[in-house]
């Protein structure tokens, strides 16, 4: 007797949203409407998902109409984050479309009297021997997709795919090049009014008194909204709203606020706070070799701003006790859950609809401004209200990527081989997204009457890649280790998800210390890494990057080269980076050479674009970025005070993809940051002979490191 084979498992997003019609519909005009729950944030996801659907259904990609996520009708796929959209939405859509194709073939087979195995589908037309034909659209009335996915259908083999795996042009780019309104910022709604919210300059201050007289005199003012410590204006035009806000600010009295840490001693602050401590992983060695000595090193990274080029924006419109919200949030259902808590309304009374914003790079103010719009729209008598944050507020009130202090102790034997490894992280949590807790995570919820406390950031579980501990467990085969995460229980600086969460800091620390040990051993850094890795895909990206960068380039004065490697979350994309820099007191990154393995690259040019973008953004973080503050204010509230990399400072970026069509695809958006950070830091050592362990690597930090070394 043989055991029955286990039932095939549905991809996670499909198990949660099994109805086929929630993902795909054939529309009258010869089009196919595809509804993912993931959203476009400039990463090109809607194009990659369109490719997957076009491929499985055998329709031209031009027929695919990508529907924006809305709580009114879309599958609930949680949040668009963590480089999971291809993994979750992509797999679900591939499975859905494979099943839909099979259902239509079965009905076509009956209708045409031809065995399904002898039918072909070409751009939606189903044909068979004897010139018999029909199409998805002809049969759409006969095939109900209001049924649950069965998991029985089999998607095409990799070799049979004609669209996925090939570069296609992104579907959203023509609109953006020809300035057809696509961004939420540009979207006209009839009767639209404009809102602005009054926020304190002093960190954590609460509005305690407000003289509204001056603001009331501003022409074009429609209403002043006030709920406890939340106050704002609604006006006929943006200019009038700005003028009214300016007048309102003069009449505001604020509480003293909450003190900020010492910006110049982040490690001291992080290591002195109450924490929740978690052992992330341990590995013990049977061998009891004695350590000759121990290297102990501390690495830090500062708070980093998301710093989207577009200030966050949202629109809201009330109709009785129902409200409709337009947002560039990464998670429409999650935002809706938080709005329901604040508004004390059932979720059914709220529709949250996604509309594209600019790149956000994680949890910025997108969700906050949506609640702002909802609260201000209460005062707008049924008109839609559009709220847009100022640059100042975007750079001071939105959550930041968390600062980190990381200490690694490496026990070395007499040959400088690693025999023990202890990695400890002190950091705020890296996620305080909406929709996941009994309390809301939205800024205005902490300002209204009966305010909610500010949500202290937590870390996703290790099974989801962790948070502050992301990428802290070495992929290298070291004989013993203990990895410990200390999550802060205080949060004077508001933090939440920024690309890679703790991954960038941890990879920087691990790869920097390895490089130091490599130098002690006089070994080649590529050889050292290959010698300590068991995973062939990991080795392949390192070898590919080395080959492409002609490793190891000859030593030249004033020039340095460095290597960095990680597999994102230890379960996602593999990425190796080699940096070439020029350095004296200031560092210029000249060239980054990367190799990446995302499994099946659905849109190879899209993957390259993401890796290039990640590499350049990481270079900006490493060389320039640091949220500035004194003891009462965030002070980096403009581009002058928070400079990012400019066109002339951007390195050449060369990317090689190792295409593996037979392996399930993973995302590319966060793969490059850690490896590039480490490669630049290691190149700085190669060039200047000094280890900079505190990011960003600025002239001051290099001088400080040189003084420490001498």
């Amino acid at each position, binding site marked *: 007797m043989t055991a029955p084979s286990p039932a095939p498992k549905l991809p996670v997003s499909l198990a949660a949203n099994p109805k086929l019609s929630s993902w795909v519909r054939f529309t009258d005009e010869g089009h196919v409407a595809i509804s993912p729950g993931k959203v476009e944030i400039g990463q090109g996801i809607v194009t990659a998902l369109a490719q997957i659907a076009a491929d499985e259904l055998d329709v031209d990609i031009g027929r695919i109409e990508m529907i924006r996520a809305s709580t009114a009708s879309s599958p609930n796929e949680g949040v668009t984050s963590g480089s999971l959209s291809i993994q979750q939405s992509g797999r679900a859509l591939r499975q859905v479309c494979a099943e839909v194709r099979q259902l239509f073939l079965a009905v076509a087979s009956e209708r045409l009297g031809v065995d399904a195995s002898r039918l072909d589908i070409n751009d939606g037309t189903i044909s068979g021997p004897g010139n018999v034909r029909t199409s998805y659209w002809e049969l759409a009335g006969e095939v109900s997709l209001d049924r649950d996915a069965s998991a029985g259908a089999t998607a095409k083999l990799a070799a049979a795919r004609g669209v996925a795996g090939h570069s296609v042009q992104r579907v959203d780019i023509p609109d*953006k090049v020809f*300035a057809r309104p696509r961004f939420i910022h540009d979207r006209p709604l009839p009767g639209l009014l404009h809102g602005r919210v009054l926020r304190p300059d002093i960190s954590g201050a609460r509005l305690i008194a407000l003289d509204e007289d001056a603001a009331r005199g501003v022409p074009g003012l429609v209403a002043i909204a006030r709920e406890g410590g939340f106050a704002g204006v609604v006006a006929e035009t943006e200019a009038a709203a700005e003028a009214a806000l300016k007048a309102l600010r003069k009449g505001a009295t604020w509480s003293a606020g909450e003190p900020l840490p010492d910006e110049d001693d982040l490690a001291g602050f992080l290591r002195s706070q109450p924490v929740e401590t978690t052992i992330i992983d341990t590995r013990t060695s049977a061998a009891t070799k004695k350590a000759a000595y121990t290297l102990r090193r501390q690495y830090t990274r500062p708070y980093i701003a998301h710093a989207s080029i577009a200030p966050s924006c949202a629109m809201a419109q009330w109709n009785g006790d129902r409200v409709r919200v337009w947002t560039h949030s990464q998670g429409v259902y999650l935002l809706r859950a938080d709005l329901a808590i604040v508004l004390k309304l059932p979720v059914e009374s709220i529709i949250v609809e996604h509309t594209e914003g600019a*790149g956000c790079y994680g949890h910025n103010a997108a969700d906050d401004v949506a609640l702002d719009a909802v609260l201000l729209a209460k005062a707008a008598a049924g008109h839609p209200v559009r709220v847009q944050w100022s640059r100042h507020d975007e750079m001071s009130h939105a959550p930041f990527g968390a600062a980190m202090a990381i200490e690694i102790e490496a026990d070395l034997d007499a040959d400088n081989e690693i025999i023990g490894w202890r990695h400890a992280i002190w950091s705020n949590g890296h996620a305080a997204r909406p929709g996941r807790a009994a309390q809301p995570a939205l800024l205005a919820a902490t300002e209204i009457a009966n305010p909610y406390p500010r949500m202290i950031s937590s870390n996703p579980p290790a099974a989801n890649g962790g948070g502050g501990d992301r990428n802290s467990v070495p992929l290298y085969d070291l004989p013993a280790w203990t990895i410990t995460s200390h999550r802060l229980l205080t949060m004077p600086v508001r933090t939440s998800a920024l690309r890679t969460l703790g991954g960038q800091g941890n990879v920087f620390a691990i790869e920097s210390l390895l490089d130091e040990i490599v130098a002690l051993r006089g070994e080649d850094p590529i050889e050292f890494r290959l010698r300590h890795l068991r995973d062939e895909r990991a080795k392949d990206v390192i070898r590919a990057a080395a080959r492409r960068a002609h490793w190891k380039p000859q030593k030249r004065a004033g020039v340095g080269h460095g290597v960095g490697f990680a597999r994102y979350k230890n379960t996602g994309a593999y990425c190796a980076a080699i940096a070439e820099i020029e350095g004296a007191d200031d560092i210029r990154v000249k060239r980054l050479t990367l190799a990446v393995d995302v499994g099946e690259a659905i849109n190879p040019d899209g993957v390259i674009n993401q890796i290039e973008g990640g590499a350049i953004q990481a270079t*900006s973080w490493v060389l320039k970025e640091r949220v500035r503050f004194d003891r009462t204010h965030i002070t980096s509230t403009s581009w002058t005070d928070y400079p990012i990399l400019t066109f002339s400072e951007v390195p050449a970026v060369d990317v090689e993809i190792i295409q593996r069509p037979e392996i399930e695809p993973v995302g590319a958006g966060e793969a490059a940051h850690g490896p590039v950070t480490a490669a630049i830091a290691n190149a700085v050592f190669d060039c200047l002979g000094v280890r900079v362990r505190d990011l960003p690597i600025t002239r001051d930090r290099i001088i400080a490191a040189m003084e420490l070394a001498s």
Partner: protein
Amino acid sequence: MPTIRFHLNGTATAVEADSDQTLLDVLRGRLGVTGPHFGCGANECGACYVMVGDHAMASCDMPMWSVADKKVTTIEGLGTAEQPHPLQRAFIAEQAMQCGYCVSGIMISAAALLKRNPSPTEAEVRAALDRNLCRCGSHNRMVRAVLRAASETAAS
């Protein structure tokens, strides 16, 4: 409110506006021209760039009085899907963006560059775009797109 006359994308335009109201506000508000984007309001990011005459300039801090009788070109004035500007063709060909919010300002800077220097070097393109910020890291694609537009224009 005074009436201020200027040429917008080749069309004679008259608006009633406070003379210290910003051009960006008038474009995006009254005139519904949403190609130029608000980014910072302080002439620090380039998202709102328009051409005034042949020069790329921030419209977010440009008072309306200074625009009187000037020729203003926004991204909408560069070309259309039917008759694209070489830069628009090139940005599509190079897939030169991620989110694209900064792109309208960057194409304006590039268009102004190509007017004064039809065959720029890569370093000249980078220098011309240095006042425009891009946060997604699409810089190199955009530089390639500008060089492509220049060489296609030269070849035609």
